[in-house]
């Protein structure tokens, strides 16, 4: 996605120049100006959908519904409501615009809640139904003018200036500039990194503390708000808001613009909306053929150029030049990660509270008891290994600790707080890092971006501060970068910082995953079979890394099959068999325990 951001940064100034030049050169041609104004209105809505579809991978076939909510709210406030005498016309316009945008955002949140429950086609159907409901309600509501719609919506007035004709062109493209700037800021900030992470791998995103559910809702609200914003000016520009303008066809048109232009980021959406706008002017001869051609175009582009037309201009590079990466090299000496870890660990755990306490935890799947009454308390700053034959329930226990699955009975306490039943991102936010058995990296992102995403939970930027690119977001981004570079350095990964994760060798993936977990200085680190699939020298390195972490004060819980490694580095070893702890103690004692020997080798 970094290349998409780069495309935006490069192409948007060119677009801006074209808009300005076109506005001056073509000002005499009313037809062209009108078409360009409609293109701008579409572009605002398309940008929102592009972020939703391309950056968050959530589809919506109901954007016309939000557009309609914005348009109808605006039209209603401007025609049917008697404003207090003191409110100037321009203020009415501004307030009506804000109200339309805000109401669309509220419905975006509602749709977002619904959307959380589905993926892919189900989501598409639910959003389509939402769009249809909006049109149908508009059609039968007398206050909204029924099938005829709201007529005589006045042109906006700023003093003596009436926003119509050429002024409308400038206003509409100024709206595009606002939408583009906000979206660009958002995607560049903490929220954008989190979107990218959740698009790649939701479970891994949760594990680094990204609240995936809340972010998806925010994305729906944002896309809804932009569509509503576009809708407000549609009513003002045309003077009429009627149901035909907000029907399902428009939702599909928007999808088409985004797919043709290229989903994700800003430039593709603007390009798509402009192309459709142009064909609206010059396509009259093909009138009836036009939608058929659009349909074919969408199919062909979705199959052959999934990155859209904008993707033809910007080719992805293997070694991505991240703007952030350039800053990283100039960043001041990164702090040694070991110290802050220790400090934060003690702080968060309240000094003497254990990082992890498990009390009589059961996990059943139907009749199968995967974890059976397990209790233990970890001593802070130690490395404990959990071993056991395949199927003993180790990973299941891990997942209940991380919040991926809820224990059937029992209580899990992290840093003194009862976290039983919490969502994974909340547990991560307490200072818990984890790695996965099969190294779940964000495949489309570079190593640096992966590790940067890992910093998420320690950042203090918010959705709003990202949108407006406030100093807070910039500071947060810089701090994140420093932490990420420190983590890369600690694991000796700077060399491959710009390689895309999916191109990495397996051993490197594991180390990157460890770096991602370390970047946020976890107090408790859960490591699931880190040695699996590593060769001898990689294992030696892993052993060093883990020992260094413990020396830094991190509390570690390790699931591992490599007995050599386990016996060499563990302060304590616990053995799980058929979901029960059968042994617990120092490595040497456990190794000689007859029950453990029997579990592994069988009894004679």
């Amino acid at each position, binding site marked *: 996605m970094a290349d998409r951001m780069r495309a935006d940064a490069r192409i948007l100034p060119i677009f801006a120049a074209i808009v300005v030049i076109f506005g001056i050169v073509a000002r005499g041609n009313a037809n062209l100006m009108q078409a360009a104004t409609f293109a701008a209105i579409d572009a605002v809505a398309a940008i929102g959908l592009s972020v939703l*579809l391309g950056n968050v*991978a959530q*589809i919506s*076939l109901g954007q016309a519904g939000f557009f309609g909510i914005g348009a109808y709210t605006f039209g209603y406030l401007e025609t049917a409501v008697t404003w207090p005498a003191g409110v100037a016309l321009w203020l009415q316009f501004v307030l009506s615009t804000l109200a339309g945008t805000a109401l669309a955002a509220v419905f975006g949140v509602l749709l977002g809640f*619904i959307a959380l*429950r*589905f*993926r*892919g*086609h*189900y989501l*598409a*159907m*639910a959003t*389509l*139904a*939402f769009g*249809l*409901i909006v049109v*149908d*309600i508009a*059609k*039968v509501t007398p206050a909204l003018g029924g099938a005829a719609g709201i007529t005589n919506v006045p042109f906006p007035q700023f003093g003596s200036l009436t926003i119509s004709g050429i002024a409308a062109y400038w206003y509409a493209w100024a709206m595009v500039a606002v939408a583009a700037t906000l979206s660009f800021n958002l995607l560049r900030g903490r929220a954008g990194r989190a979107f990218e992470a959740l698009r790649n791998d*939701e479970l891994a995103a949760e594990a680094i503390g990204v609240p995936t559910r809340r972010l998806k809702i925010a994305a729906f609200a944002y896309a809804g708000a932009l569509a509503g914003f576009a809708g407000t000016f549609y009513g003002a520009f045309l003077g009429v808001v009627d149901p035909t303008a907000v029907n*399902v066809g428009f939702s*599909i048109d928007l*999808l*088409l613009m985004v*797919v043709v232009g290229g989903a994700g980021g800003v430039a593709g959406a603007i390009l798509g909306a402009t192309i459709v706008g142009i064909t609206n002017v010059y396509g009259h001869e093909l009138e*009836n*053929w036009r*939608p*058929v051609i*659009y*349909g*074919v*175009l*969408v*199919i062909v582009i*979705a*199959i052959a150029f*999934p990155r859209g037309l904008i993707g033809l201009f910007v080719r992805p590079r293997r070694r991505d030049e991240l703007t952030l990466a350039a800053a990283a090299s100039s960043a001041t000496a990164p702090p040694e990660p070991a110290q802050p870890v220790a400090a934060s660990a003690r702080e968060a755990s309240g000094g003497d509270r254990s990082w992890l306490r498990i009390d009589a935890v059961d996990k059943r799947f139907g009749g199968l008891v995967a974890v059976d009454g397990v209790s233990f308390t970890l001593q802070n700053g130690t490395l404990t290994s959990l071993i056991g034959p395949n199927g003993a329930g180790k990973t299941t226990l891990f997942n209940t600790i991380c919040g991926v699955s809820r224990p059937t009975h029992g209580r899990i306490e992290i840093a003194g707080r009862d976290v039983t039943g919490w969502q994974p991102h909340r547990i991560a936010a307490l200072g818990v890092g984890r790695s996965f058995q099969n190294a779940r990296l964000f495949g489309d992102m570079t190593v640096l971006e992966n590790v940067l995403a890992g910093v998420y939970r320690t950042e203090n930027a918010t959705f709003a501060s990202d949108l407006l690119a406030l100093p807070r977001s910039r500071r947060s981004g810089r701090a994140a970068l420093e932490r990420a570079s420190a983590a890369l350095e600690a694991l000796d990964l700077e060399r491959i910082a710009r390689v895309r994760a999916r191109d990495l060798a397996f051993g490197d993936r594991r180390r990157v995953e460890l770096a991602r977990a370390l970047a946020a200085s976890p107090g408790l680190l859960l490591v699931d079979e880190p040695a699996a699939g590593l060769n001898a020298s990689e294992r030696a390195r892993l052993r060093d890394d883990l020992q260094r972490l413990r020396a830094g004060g991190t509390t570690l819980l390790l699931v591992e099959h490599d007995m050599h490694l386990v016996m060499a580095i563990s302060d304590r070893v616990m053995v799980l068999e058929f979901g029960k702890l059968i042994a617990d103690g120092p490595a040497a004692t456990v190794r000689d325990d007859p029950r453990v020997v029997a579990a592994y080798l069988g009894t004679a």
Partner: protein
Amino acid sequence: MLQLVVAGLTVGSGYALVALGIHIILRATRVVNFAQGEFVVLGGLFAYSVVAQLHASVWIGLVVATVAGFGLGLAYERFVLRAAARAGELSVTIVTVGTVYVLLYGHALVWGSLPEPLPYFSGVEGDASWHVFGVQIAAQQLWVLGLLALALAVLGFFFERTTYGKAIRAAANNPAGAQLVGIDVDRARSISVAIAIALAAFGGAIIGPITLVGGAAGIGIAIKGFVGGIVGGLDSPVGCTLGGLLVGVVEKLLEGRFGYGVSDPVVYGLLIAMLLVRPQGLLGTLRATRD
């Protein structure tokens, strides 16, 4: 009231066939086909052309529509769905939406945008009808229900009793495993999609005499069929059938009581409510709706 129920069962038969088609394609390819309703419209138009241009019997029209639907389904799977699957799940959803556009506006280019009448299967002008317990039942309504039952019986026999049908189900259930035992998974997918599209076209031809054929009805049919599937359970053929019929009845009852404008938003609202409360449907067990 009973009159409305009978009318509802008739349009509901169309939704049931759409829901079944969506079910078959979903099971075989993990795709919800948004264009299913357009294929219903297309089937009706094929039958119309056979009757209007070739002056053949509407029964021949029905056969031609079904066979043409099968052929179209093969092409659709091969050149659209399979190609898009390589670009990811979202791409497949997008191309099925694109197909809606191509078919919706494409058939308007060929047949015009106004719906056309299809003759009644009874061959009687204005259709034969009987009064039973004060309810007027038209011959076409009986034909629709009878032909729906026939289609269900044929499908049930094919998927449950024949080796080939079982192979297709195996391929849908576990593609990798099916491949290992020698089933051609790609071919099974093609056939599944073709059967589903043939079913849609068949449905378009049998409800055509009542609803007229052509026009922009497809997207509504697709969504209501989907609602039926969701209500009954998209992973259960019986659920799909009953759900589709139920949606038809609900629609007609609402229409009878409150007029045209109200039934559609309520039915669409039913979809969202159902997805929220019981996404697996009344008779289904599907868990794939969530992460």
